């Protein structure tokens, strides 16, 4: 190693040293400790006691765990595709040559900035079974309004509907992708007499597929960890209908002080997210098109 190289190495390490310390203190150590605790009985108040795979075994027979998992699965199965389709549709609408695009984009983006606490309280009020404006609007067009958040059958659909209000962030990403699609592709399609849905199917969607993939991955990571909004709105009720995975994990950790069990849940969550991401990647490999490659 020359003098210059040694100097560069020293400088490089000095510049990244804050992150190196952080990596050990807030990432590597907690990851290893969490793996260890997941094999222990641990309440934070007393030292961890090794119990092997018992926590993981208990998960499989824990009814509440399965309930929380299926709630999360339900939410993901409806919210992910719905947000994806509506997000793309909205972006396509906004990408047409309408006047005031900046204005519309702002309107659709702003709700995604609303802090979760305000979001939760606002929709709690709008979904109010008796005085809520949602049921009033349904009544006005002759539909009977369900009792939404206090009805176990309707609480999750209410949360799925709410998630649509926050798609603006994804729309901005789709729009950026749409604006990168070369115009000449559409022009040659026009010459060949392609219809609008042909153009969307064979030009637009393939060209923005990397962005769709990106939003899908972010979506998976997000829905698997929903916490704040249902925690504030329902606390997991009614009848555990909105007890989602991370909420049950939180309860185990900080309400029942079963921290080892909660760590086991956290690792299962990591494996779930990893698995879903890998499936999404495998599926998208056939469909995602990277223009640069």
């Amino acid at each position, binding site marked *: 190693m020359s003098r210059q190289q040694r100097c560069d190495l020293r400088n490089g390490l000095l510049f990244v040293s804050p992150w190196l310390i952080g990596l050990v203190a807030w990432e590597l150590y907690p990851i290893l400790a969490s793996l260890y605790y997941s094999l222990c009985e641990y309440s934070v108040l007393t030292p961890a006691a090794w119990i092997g795979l018992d926590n993981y075994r208990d998960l499989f027979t824990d009814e509440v765990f399965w309930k929380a998992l299926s709630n999360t699965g339900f939410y993901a199965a409806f919210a992910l595709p719905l947000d994806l389709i509506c997000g793309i549709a909205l972006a396509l609408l906004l990408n047409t040559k309408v006047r005031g695009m900046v204005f519309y984009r702002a309107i659709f983006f*702003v709700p995604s900035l609303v802090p979760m*606490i*305000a979001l939760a309280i606002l929709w709690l009020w709008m979904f109010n079974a008796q005085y809520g404006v949602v049921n009033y609007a349904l009544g006005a067009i002759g539909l009977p309004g369900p009792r939404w958040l206090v009805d176990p059958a309707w609480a999750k659909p209410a949360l799925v509907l709410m998630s649509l209000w926050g798609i603006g962030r994804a729309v*901005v990403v789709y729009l*950026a992708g749409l604006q990168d699609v070369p115009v000449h592709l559409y022009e040659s399609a026009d010459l060949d007499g392609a219809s609008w849905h042909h153009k969307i199917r064979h030009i637009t969607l393939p060209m923005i597929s990397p962005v769709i993939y990106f939003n899908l991955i972010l979506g998976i990571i997000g829905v698997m960890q929903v916490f704040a909004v249902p925690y504030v709105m329902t606390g997991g009720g009614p009848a555990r209908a909105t007890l989602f995975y991370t909420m049950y994990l939180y309860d185990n950790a900080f309400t029942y002080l079963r921290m080892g069990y*909660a760590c086991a849940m956290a690792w299962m969550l990591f494996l779930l997210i990893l698995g879903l991401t890998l499936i999404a990647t495998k599926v998208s490999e056939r469909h995602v098109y990277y223009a640069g490659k």
Partner: protein
Amino acid sequence: MIHAILIALSCVFLFPLLWMISTSLKPIDQVMKLPPEWIPRPILIRNYLDAVNYIPFFQYAKNTLAICILGIIGTLLSCSLVAYGFARIRWPGRDALFILSLSTMMIPFPVTMIPLYGVFRTLHWIGTNRPLWVPAFFGSAFNIFLLRQFFLTIPFDLSEAARIDGCSELRIFKDVIVPLARPALMVVALFHFIYAWNDFLGPLIYLTKQETFTLSLGLQFYQSQHGGTQWHMLMAASTLVVLPVLILFFFAQKTFIQGIALTGLKG
């Protein structure tokens, strides 16, 4: 045709926010009136004063702002330094470490949550706001990534010239790179503010005393005690929580949109 659809959808998207403001200005008996009315009669600005006094809004706002500001300072300092080390200096092992930093983004927070709680408990930081801003001084993978990508676009000739003039790396960082990277630093600061203003799980875990609560936690506390009745006050408080974010958006709309588009396309 498209205009008609867009206008209809805009109304749907704007409705909740307008309804929040409308409810926040109504007397309570009008709030609970069927059919619902749009225009508050009379318009009660007093709801806001009541909400602010009853909820200790300013106390919570002060606590939240302190966490936001300290966090922004920490994030800007640490992430820009680290990103410089990853983008502008060539050293053995750099790229492997950078990939390691990216892969930590894959770990969901619940995995590290419990040992972190243990660490902060040993440090006697539980009940203080320190767990919510001290880690920002040690960089975060996402912001490091964002800044590194930006630093890479700055011509290397500039730092080469400064190096020949005998500038140290720290001088180049301070006098050449940081001034040119101002737009990217703005994005990072803005995103961190939104994140910290919005954060709920962190404060819920670490803050135990009511006088240290953030707005998110304080509002949840109030809602859980008076929920289902005091809608006018809850809507007033919610409006006040949304307001700073809206104001920021109107002044920095371009930074927001570019920042989000940037993260989406480079990711």
